[in-house]
């Protein structure tokens, strides 16, 4: 790829060979490995996978928010706005946070500070990053709350998180994330901890926000249907690796990796006859304990061949160049 071409359609975020190392009782394990993807402005990348597959650590690593026992592998790169996020000083990373990349966490019950009013929590980045006065920040906070659908925003700014419902709190968290007009929004399972009834509303809100401001978004979820309907491209993760990257529309029909198909099959469907058995995936994903030889999914895969157990499959693309998958024995593309 030439430099000029790069400049023309420079992606918002370009992640290359991202690995996250976790130190566990004196051993170092790679919990995220060889993750590469690109994200364009205004697009949404969905990341799906079972719990423990490294989704959260992947997101946190981009913002430099890994826990003390984890670290980004030295050869990883993540270009955002022309800068490699992994090589920024803490102070320049602080400028990227909020103003460049904002994050929404899984559990709104614990992600808001219980002893600060939500108004103060929204105002903080406004004052710190945008240099607003306290009064201006406050009126902006009211606007923001209003825009994320919090009713009675004027009163709500002075409330404490415990006085609000889970859905409301997640709206507040979104307002905080949007406060400085980020170019990229990372939403780490933003609806998992919420009631089913408010999940859709929160996702709608996120879609609306994103469409309005052309931000890019990484939406982490374990719900395939959410990924298929709310994103442009879906990355399927298994045991710390991305095993398939596919456009959202083709997810249910054109998947080529057996693991993706297994995930799709495990979704309960309305059109099935009642009491039909669900297709749970046999076995459990490998823990981050041992070294993995070959494809990590091979022990649970019904299409596994000899090669799968010997060598890790590399990422390769189909002819279109937009569908990437890592499998030695992929599912055949259905006839057009």
């Amino acid at each position: 790829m030439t430099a000029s071409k790069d400049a023309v359609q420079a992606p918002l975020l370009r992640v290359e060979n991202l690995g996250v190392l976790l130190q566990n009782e004196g051993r170092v394990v790679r919990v995220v490995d060889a993750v590469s993807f690109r994200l364009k402005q205004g697009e949404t990348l969905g990341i799906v996978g079972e719990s423990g597959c490294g989704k959260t650590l992947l997101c946190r690593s981009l913002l430099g928010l890994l826990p003390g026992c984890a670290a980004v592998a030295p050869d990883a790169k993540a270009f955002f706005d022309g800068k490699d996020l992994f090589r920024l000083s803490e102070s320049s990373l602080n400028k990227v946070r909020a103003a460049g990349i904002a994050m929404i966490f899984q559990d709104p019950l614990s992600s808001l500070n219980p002893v600060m009013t939500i108004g103060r929590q929204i105002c903080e980045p406004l004052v710190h990053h945008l240099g607003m006065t306290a009064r201006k920040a406050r009126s902006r906070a009211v606007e923001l709350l209003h825009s994320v659908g919090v009713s009675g925003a004027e009163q709500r700014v002075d409330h404490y998180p415990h006085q609000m419902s889970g859905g409301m709190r997640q709206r507040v968290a979104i307002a905080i994330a949007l406060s400085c007009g980020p170019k990229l929004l990372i939403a780490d399972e933003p609806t998992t901890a919420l009631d089913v009834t408010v999940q859709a509303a929160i996702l709608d809100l996120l879609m609306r926000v994103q469409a309005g401001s052309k931000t890019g978004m990484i939406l982490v979820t374990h719900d395939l249907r959410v990924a298929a309907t709310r994103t442009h491209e879906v990355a399927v993760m298994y045991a710390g690796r991305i095993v398939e990257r596919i456009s959202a529309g083709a997810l249910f029909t054109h998947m080529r990796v057996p693991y993706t198909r297994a995930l799709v099959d495990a979704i309960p469907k309305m059109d099935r006859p009642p009491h039909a058995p669900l297709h749970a995936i046999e076995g459990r994903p490998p823990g981050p304990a041992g070294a993995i030889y070959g494809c990590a999914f091979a022990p649970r895969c019904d299409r596994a061949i000899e090669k799968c157990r010997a060598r890790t499959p590399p990422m390769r693309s189909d002819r279109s160049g937009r569908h990437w998958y890592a499998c030695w024995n992929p599912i055949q593309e259905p006839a057009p």
Partner: protein
Amino acid sequence: MSALGKRALHLFLVVFAASSVTFLMVDLLPGDAAYQIAGDTATLEDVQAIREELGLNRSLVLRYMNWLADVARGDLGVSYLTREPVREAIMARLPVTIELMIAAQLIALVLSVPAGIYSGYRPRSCIDRILGSTSFAVMSIPVFVMALVLIYLFALKLGWLPATGYVPLSADPVANIRSMLLPALSIALVEWVPLMRVLRSDMIDTLHEDYILMARSKGLPTHTILFRHALRPSLFTLVTLFGIQVGHLIGGALIVETIFALPGIGRLLIGAIFSRDIIVVQGCILFIAVAYVAVNFLVDISYTLLDPRIRRGGGGWLTAPHIR
């Protein structure tokens, strides 16, 4: 709020019982209290006079009622030796003791809060380890030893600060601070350690919370996160301990006032014990107990200020024998 009300009632009963115990001191003294007060050289008439004055001839119940009524009006009796009303004697010395305790606790906070925050922020770091082991050693130094070491170093060897004496704040603020510094430091250097330790462990817990991650994701600088986001939720145990330490502070003040010759309540009490001025002893002990219970009640209330979520019932009553 009803939990708080219950607690207030409970504390009232405790104070009431404690005052009764204090009252009974006179009767618990072995032998005749009047003889004790009068001393060895007293005549029979003297003893009789004392008896009359204290009402020792009357029945216990009657005396108790009278005493209680007096105490409720703030009348703690009159010193037999100096003829000074006990209430006046206490009030005259109270500012010294309060200044000493506040100064000591301020120094303890100034030392423990930054140290606790840093240790909690970087646990197992070099500084944390040093703080951890030295603090354990410091905790084993009794207040009176600490006071002597400080006198030896700063008053006798270096000559920076006076070893004894007290200058009122109104007379000369600088001299007052100089005279208070070593006494306050003697108490503070012992008391800051537990404060630091609880803050450290609470800080470690708080820093694992999601909202700290959230605050970091907002791109706030570390000091903002530590002081604005993490400190307040980490203060509960510290505040509890603060209340408990008032007991240590009072004990420390007793000793330190004696060593540094500060005219506070501690010296009043100790002096009265030596001269067996029972009315003064009784008054001081009652006053200290009531103040102590009141402060602990205030600490309970302060929880609600710290955390809007909770109305914690119960809270920090004492768990250890606390003499320093």
